[in-house]
């Protein structure tokens, strides 16, 4: 077990180290002044340039520079955005929770819709309802996310006018930023029309959540349906049936648990898919999350922001993937690695 843990930590540290090296070298590879790419500040005078170079150790060898770069990363001193001159750590700590919030709700929707539908389809497979479920999952799996988002906007916002098409909440509600999760912040906020603000935030959430949840729901349906079909056709289920248990008893006692266990890690892996889809959908719905933020940084050639944004997102995905992989190995060590889905 310890061996396994060490192996995974090793993998994670190495991957992150490579990412940090890439992000460091980006400061040199991006066009323009390396000092500006690292600090986000365009020096106004020669004295300022010298002072900044001393701060970022640009006058020292590349290894010393890298060491200080690492130190700054760890201490949270990530430089400033060259377009807004606001600290990158601050900007990311506002944008990142917005994305996490979006994928959390999408994940919840996918779990509570996808898994039950998958079970029903799997248990009564090749029945009309199952065909319906399979059709639904194939169709929604095939939609490109950005296209779906645009169709949603056309129908629900522009044609019917039911739902708003951009942002997290009407800007007239001045919600103080604390956790970064809008619904939670509204509940905690000390504002007069809390209930209206909450409903308004919910209305803003529906379309972006639906656009990214649909694909993941389709994937969850297929995983669960396949898994329950395999499980319910195993020998021990047949044996249970012959001993006179009802389908209901068999399903809840054995089928549910045994079929969920192997697919849970697969589902957790979908978080990174969800994350990438969220980044696409954010730009369409002007959701102020990390994806939208990076796209804006690219438009404005804000190299410090692109560099740090890329690092934060990739470290997040790598950490998440490796952690899930480790947990699934740890809780279910019996299956060998060939049965488990590859990372």
């Amino acid at each position: 077990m310890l061996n396994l843990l060490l192996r995974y930590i090793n993998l994670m540290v190495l991957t992150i180290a490579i990412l940090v090296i890439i992000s460091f070298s980006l400061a040199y590879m991006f066009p323009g002044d390396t000092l500006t790419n690292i600090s986000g500040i365009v020096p106004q005078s020669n004295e300022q340039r010298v002072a900044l170079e001393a701060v970022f150790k640009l006058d020292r060898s590349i290894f010393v520079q890298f060491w200080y770069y690492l130190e700054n990363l760890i201490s949270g001193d990530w430089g400033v955005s060259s377009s807004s001159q606001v600290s990158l750590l601050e900007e990311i700590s506002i944008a990142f929770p917005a994305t996490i919030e979006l994928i959390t709700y999408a994940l919840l929707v996918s779990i509570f819709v996808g898994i039950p539908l998958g079970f029903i389809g799997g248990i009564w497979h090749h029945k009309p309802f199952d065909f319906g479920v399979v059709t639904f999952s194939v169709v929604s799996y095939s939609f490109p996310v950005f296209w779906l988002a645009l169709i949603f906007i056309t129908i629900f916002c522009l044609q019917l006018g039911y739902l708003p098409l951009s942002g997290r909440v009407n800007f007239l509600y001045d919600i103080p930023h604390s956790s970064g999760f809008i619904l939670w912040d509204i509940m905690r906020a000390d504002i007069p029309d809390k209930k209206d603000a909450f409903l308004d935030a919910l209305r803003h959430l529906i379309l972006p959540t639906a656009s990214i949840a649909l694909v993941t729901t389709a994937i969850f349906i297929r995983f669960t349906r396949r898994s329950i079909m395999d499980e319910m056709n195993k020998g021990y289920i047949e044996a249970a049936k012959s001993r006179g248990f009802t389908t209901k008893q068999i399903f809840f006692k054995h089928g549910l648990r045994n079929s969920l266990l192997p697919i849970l890690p697969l589902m957790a892996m979908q978080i990174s898919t969800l994350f990438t889809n969220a980044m696409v959908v954010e730009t369409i719905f002007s959701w102020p999350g990390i994806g939208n933020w990076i796209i804006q940084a690219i438009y404005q050639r804000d190299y410090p922001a692109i560099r740090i944004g890329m690092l934060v997102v990739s470290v997040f995905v790598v950490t998440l993937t490796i952690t899930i992989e480790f947990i699934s190995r740890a809780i279910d060590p019996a299956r060998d690695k060939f049965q488990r889905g590859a990372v």
Partner: protein
Amino acid sequence: MNPNAQLRIIKSAILLSFSLILMLGCSKQKTQITQAGITFCSEGSPASFNPQLDTSSTTADASSHQIYDRLLEFNTDNGEIEPGLASSWLVSNDGLTYTFQLRKGVEFHDTPYFTPTRNFNADDVVFSIDRWRVASHPYHEVSGGSYPYFQSLGLKNTIKDVTRINGYRVEISLYKPDSSFLANLATDFSVILSAEYGMNLLAEGSPSNIDVLPIGTGPYKFVSYRKDQFIRYQRHSDYFLDTIGPEHLVFDITPKSSLRVAKLITGECDAVAFPSQNDLEIIRNRDDLTLLERPGLNVGFWAFNTSKPPFDNPKVRRALALAIDNTSLLEAVYLGQATRAKSLVPSASWAYQPNMQDTGYNPVTARKLLDEAGIPDNFTMNIWAMPVQRAYNPNAMKMAQLMSTYLADVGVTVNIVSYDWARFRENLTAGMHDSVLIGWSADNGDPDNFYRPLLTCAAIPSGTNRAQWCNPEYDALIESALKIEDSDERRIFYHRANQIIFRETPLVPIAHAYQYQAVNNQIEGLTINPFGGIRFDDVVRK
């Protein structure tokens, strides 16, 4: 569990969730705060909250008429100058001394970052003007130290001194008479800052905050700003005028024009800036939206390089002007979103001459004039078409193509030339063109802002006189017009200048383009301010 029971549960769950969505969706909310507030979708982030530092209309929209007041204001209907923070003013007989009587009891904004201890007085006026005027002023170098509007007009060299006579009286003395001086004080850029706030910030050692966390006397207080996201304002409850504007004002920064219009349709914006030409029809066709339009303070024209033969011959310029059917250009290029220009100033200016004669369209006379001037039948010239879109010319390339077919009718062959914008202007200033399609947008209601930069001799080196045309008679008229205060008398000079332009045809005025704003029908009182930034002090929600 039997399958049917399961199906029933699923069905009811689906129904429930759909009805929940519909319930959330259909109830278009009319809550207290959305009733009391107005959301304006603007096109970009302001560079700062001080329009002295920037001539872009985005900065002016976000600050000039929200946060600040000026000594004088333009009447948005007729462009006349009205009292602002100055309740009255006196001009000495020689036109060199201006005395302003200031309004009493005007309060500055009380915000979490500044609590004023005194009302507006003469010190604030001296502080605000000296900031851009006096190089040794403690705030002159703050936030870059560049004041483009005042620099372009050379106001530093016009003003001799700004002195405080008493707490509510200020005297400004000039080196030479300048009748556009009052108009310059009424532009978006001549805002009045708080001297007390400035001193406090200096003591705290954070002077640059004056342009980031602004304090003014205007109808709205600054609340918060996040770049590329929003600007929040709150009504200044002690504003010196009775305003009926909304309690809360939000600028939702949306750079994409199609997205702004989409948000207007869904009701997320109450008003939008700069709807694109393609979206105008959509807005007009909707019953719940109104498209505001009015002729803007701009002019699009076709200028000849009069320093180059044969364009130094007025007869040739006249002939070429007669060969073009301007009315069809208005329809094809401006899609009807412009009015025909006969002289430099549009009808929004007081110097507009309604009875001005038109060059007209007459290819036969054009050919005759060309023959008289000795221009052969296969004469070739170039038309430079500017590579960017502007309100005064949304598609110069298309216009040039249309013009080339007209000119072909009178036996003139046209080569259309275009470069990237920076090189285009560089080569224009160098005088490499035969003729050019370009235009001008003014920043104040004063006609001098059109006549001087576009056609005077002094404007040739600075690059705004695209015709490279220098006429002493015209220059004398423009100079004398500036020495006179009375606008009726000044108008006569400008009308005489129009006659010279008509006779000499250094350029062919083509169009004054409309300005557009789109609003939700629930909003009342929003108008287009032809003299600059948007104003919300009289806007209400029905």
